[in-house]
């Protein structure tokens, strides 16, 4: 029992760290669903590409076991590489795989999304020969530096992850609620046809949404690489599932819901491990989803989603 209680602070820290990644991913899912009413199952694979782009940047900036520039600049370059790769990929996918199918059956883009994700995963497998790549996190964040709170160790990596994901979410919230693009996005998600009538170029809005959503996945990819210290071509699969779960949990289409769903899911996964063996952590996540859907079919913040969106 004592051992049980002693784990709680650390598991909460674990949950919040993981949750901030899930939240970023869930936001991308939710944004696309908001404007297009389609589930972008390729989102997890885009995240994987972002992780590899970040890894590529880091390896280019590394000579032997040392960075060729300051850690902060290198981190910036990694995030930039991740975002550039995923934004470009997101725009390309939208243009090639989804736009031609718009207006057709609702199933078509869904299948197309699955196809894109299979293509991306296999391409990554071929390019990496299926081998895992190591993120040299220790070059970016000091490994011997950490904050200790109530028995929990909070490493620099975790602090950076949480802080940047909160900052991104606040920024995104401001974009959506205060800018012209945000207004156009909200209008498109309310009624795309009507938005078109009042002069909103919905095609551009949709493309923009994909670019923003994919960029978030790119950031998340770099974060996860630094956090797990290892990536491979399969990381997108479970991350995509978790992000989808978080988005549904929060009420799909609702941005604040996605952020809340992500954090909650991360916490559920970590806290659940307190009671169940760690090997069941994914089962716990999906159990949370099922229970939520039974009690609140439209997700935690689903009601507001309809009123707001």
């Amino acid at each position, binding site marked *: 029992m004592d051992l049980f209680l002693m784990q709680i602070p*650390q598991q909460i820290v674990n949950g919040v760290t993981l949750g901030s990644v899930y939240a970023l991913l869930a936001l991308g899912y939710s944004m696309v669903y908001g404007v297009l009413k389609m589930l972008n199952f390729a989102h997890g694979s885009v995240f994987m590409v972002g992780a590899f782009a970040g890894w590529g940047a880091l390896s280019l900036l590394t000579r032997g076991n040392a960075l060729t520039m300051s850690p902060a600049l290198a981190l910036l370059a990694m995030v930039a590489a991740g975002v550039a790769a995923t934004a470009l990929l997101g725009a390309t996918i939208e243009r090639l795989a989804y736009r031609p199918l718009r207006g057709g059956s609702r199933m078509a883009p869904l299948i197309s999304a699955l196809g894109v994700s299979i293509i991306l995963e296999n391409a990554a497998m071929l390019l990496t020969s*299926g081998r895992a790549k190591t993120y040299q996190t220790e070059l970016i964040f000091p490994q011997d530096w950490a904050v200790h709170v109530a028995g929990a160790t909070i490493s620099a990596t975790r602090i950076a992850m949480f802080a940047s994901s909160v900052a991104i979410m606040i920024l995104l919230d401001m974009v959506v609620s205060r800018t012209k693009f945000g207004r156009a996005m909200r209008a498109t998600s309310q009624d795309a046809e009507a938005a078109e009538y009042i002069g909103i170029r919905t095609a551009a809005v949709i493309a923009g949404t994909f670019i923003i959503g994919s960029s978030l996945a790119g950031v998340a990819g770099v974060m996860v690489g630094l956090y797990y210290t290892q990536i491979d071509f399969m990381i997108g699969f479970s991350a995509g599932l978790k992000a989808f779960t978080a988005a549904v949990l929060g009420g799909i289409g609702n941005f604040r819901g996605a952020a809340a769903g992500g954090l909650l899911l991360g916490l559920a996964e970590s806290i659940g491990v307190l009671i169940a063996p760690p090997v069941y952590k994914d089962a716990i996540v999906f159990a949370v989803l099922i229970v939520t859907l039974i009690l609140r079919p439209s997700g935690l913040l689903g009601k507001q989603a309809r009123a707001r969106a």
Partner: protein
Amino acid sequence: MKARLLNLRRTLSALVALTTFAALMGFAGFPGAGLVHSAANLSPIKIGAAGPYSGDLSKIGLDGLNAIRMAVEEANAAGGVRGRKIEIVEADDAGDSSKAILVAEKLAMDRAVLGVVGPMNSSTVEAALPTYQRAGLAIISQSATKPSLTETGYKVMHRICPRDDAQGPASAEFVVEVLKAKSVYIIDDKTAYGQGLSDEVEAALKASGIKTVRSQITLEDRDFSPILTRVKVAKPDLLYLGLANPAQAASIIKQAAGLGISVKLMGGDGLKEKDQLIAGSAGLAEGMYVTTIGRAITEVPEAAEFIRKFEGKFGAMSVFSGQTYEAARILIDAMRRASADPSKLTRALVMEALGKTAGYKGILGFPISFDSKGDVIGAGIYVYQAKGDDFVLVR
């Protein structure tokens, strides 16, 4: 009629010219071609190479495949199997049990396949054994250590690595006598190898009165914070990693450091991988102990030539490169002994000859023989420690 005859004659003369040309080329091409003429005309013998060539374990798998290629190239340069050329049929199981069955069926269907090197993982061997048994196709695994594999009466099963029930007690002995640990936290990856080895280690530790805690992860896991938080709170003297994937072990070690955990580390033979464990953990694996089956071949004088050639061609060896090379050579040796007439080679003859392998001296540093169950006789368990960028023998 006349035109046809003319045509026929023309074709005939063309044929004669061609044959003469081919024969001349043959004699000129390599000496001795005339001697093995009849055997060379026989179809090539095929050897299956089953292992994880894609996916999480592909590093170990592909290095193994390269070792098989080297063994076969060398054997072919030395006349193949009594004149018959040897070809490799690659069978990628990705370390996955269901795929292992599929590729086993593929190998079984190809009647020219007379023996198989691999599969590499205990789980894939376990899954595919019934298929190989039905096909009467002998397999020789370089690294499947789960004890039960040779206990269920499958005649096709052979392995050149000692079993986990030899590695388990030896590890426990080291933990008790040398490390003097009182409590051990064991993490396994639910694979037949990882879980099986951990079972053996745990049983042996318990028998010595050591307190053990056990948790599991899966091969797909990337986030080890939840389980490591348990480790952190349990404060064990030693963390034992019963894992099949050294890259995953490196990731656990790095994440443990991020949680402020500092604990002695130990693992099984599968983790002794320089690139992935030592380099992959950025040196955090320093001081980690790994048990190995047999000595590292870098210390065996007979293996120097192999290492030089292998590393010159493919870069740093993986933990099983030498064992895989040896497994392939033992299989080829058995094929050469199986029948004086290479055209009469069958799977049954190869299996019989493989089982009779006795005192085979190769690069592993001990003479290899099989007992009646297909287990290797004569291998010992050693303990190595990660120091700097390599492993050094400590016991």
